[in-house]
């Protein structure tokens, strides 16, 4: 019987009450202390670069960075592109203004254009929707037939009048669209490291636990960083931490989006398949040895559905293993990092 299980009565099902509750003040203290230690000893850098998207994770990281080393040793970057929503751009500006940190705004659309990001995406879309035009909007969504069916991705395009067309994405088109979109995270990281290099700063990675554990990041894109201050925190806890640190209400109430596709796209419909509160519960239950029946009781779903959620957690962990992995070496090298270190 696990610790979590033992908090429940023998006949009680579900998750313990307040299972994600943490001591917020103590958490902030632990993280900021560790950031300072890491800068001084592990990284030997003089400050922190944080790309601020307008989402809750980067806002919390920027706030933690500011508390850790003071606003003068933080550089915030606002890096919108053609498909960034005006809402998230505005929230990003709100965050940096609120924190009072130096910031640079750079529209990365020209870089992405030059790389062919939009063209590669649009070419893949046109193989499925030949009438697609550059002014149309698009996104891809995770789809599953009811029951134990495999999940797959559909492409949704929307014409200038708002009419939508939906097509199942074949493998090659799926890969090409995702690869093109990954340019966005990688270009942002390129710019983050440029500024980090010129200022002798370290780069802050902003994944929360769900993203870090489940592989919701781009390898050598937003997955690259020198320090990841909230990778151990569930999304619910990140929201609580942001509120505790006094970040503006509109930031603390923002709904998680990918802000990567031209049509609005929730993280749940692109990757997790569940709203973050439910994913937090599922991951917590999995990590604390609770049963599918416990999760089912908490979420109000069937036990079979909960089992399916557990299977998908493990399946995504397989994907995450590749994303976290260092390059494979043919022979060991004494100074090399441990392969598959997480």
């Amino acid at each position, binding site marked *: 019987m696990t610790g979590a299980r033992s908090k429940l009565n023998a006949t009680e099902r579900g998750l313990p009450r307040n299972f994600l509750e943490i001591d917020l003040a103590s958490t902030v203290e632990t993280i900021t202390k560790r950031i300072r230690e890491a800068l001084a000893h592990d990284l030997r850098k003089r400050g922190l670069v944080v790309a601020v998207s307008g989402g809750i994770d980067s806002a919390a990281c920027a706030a933690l960075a500011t508390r850790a080393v003071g606003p003068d040793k933080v550089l915030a970057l606002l890096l919108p592109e053609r498909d960034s929503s005006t809402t998230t751009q505005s929230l990003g500006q709100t965050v940096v203004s609120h924190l009072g940190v130096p910031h640079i705004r750079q529209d990365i659309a020209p870089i992405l254009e030059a790389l062919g990001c939009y063209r590669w995406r649009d070419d893949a879309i046109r193989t499925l929707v030949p009438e697609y035009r550059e002014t149309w909007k698009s996104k891809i969504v995770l789809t599953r*037939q009811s029951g134990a069916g*495999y999940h*797959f*991705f559909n492409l949704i395009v929307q014409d200038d009048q708002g009419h939508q067309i939906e097509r199942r994405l*074949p*493998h090659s088109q799926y890969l090409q669209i995702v690869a093109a979109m990954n340019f966005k995270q990688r270009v942002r990281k390129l710019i983050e490291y440029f500024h980090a290099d010129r200022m002798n700063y370290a780069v802050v990675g902003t994944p929360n636990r769900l993203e870090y554990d489940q592989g919701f990041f781009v390898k050598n894109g937003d997955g690259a960083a020198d320090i990841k201050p909230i990778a151990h925190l569930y999304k619910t806890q990140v929201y609580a931490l942001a509120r505790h640190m006094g970040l503006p209400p509109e930031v603390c109430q923002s709904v998680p989006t990918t802000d990567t596709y031209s049509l609005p796209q929730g993280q749940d419909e692109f990757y997790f398949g569940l709203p973050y509160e439910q994913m937090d519960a599922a991951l917590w239950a999995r990590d604390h040895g609770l049963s599918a029946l416990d999760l089912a009781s908490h979420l109000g779903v069937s036990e079979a559905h909960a089992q399916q959620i557990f299977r998908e957690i493990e*399946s995504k962990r397989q*994907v995450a293993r590749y994303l976290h992995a260092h390059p494979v070496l043919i022979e060991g090298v004494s100074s090399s990092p441990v392969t598959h270190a997480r």
Partner: protein
Amino acid sequence: MDIKGQVKAYILEDIMMGADPSELSDSASFLDSGILDSTGVVELISFLEKTFGIKVRDEEMIPENLDTLFNVERFVGGKLKVQV
């Protein structure tokens, strides 16, 4: 080559990078044995559609049709029979 043979050859060569045929039994679950992940299943479907000229419908994307060589053989065979 029969359906199962073509699919097995494809998986051994393109997914398992030239693995020995003994490493892929007819009843091994692709997912459970780690041969395919969910993206790999979509890749397999693209192969089946292209190779056998069939169309796999959304509701047919279930393990009973696609998770073992046996299942794929039965599923594709059924589709081809209907088409004839």
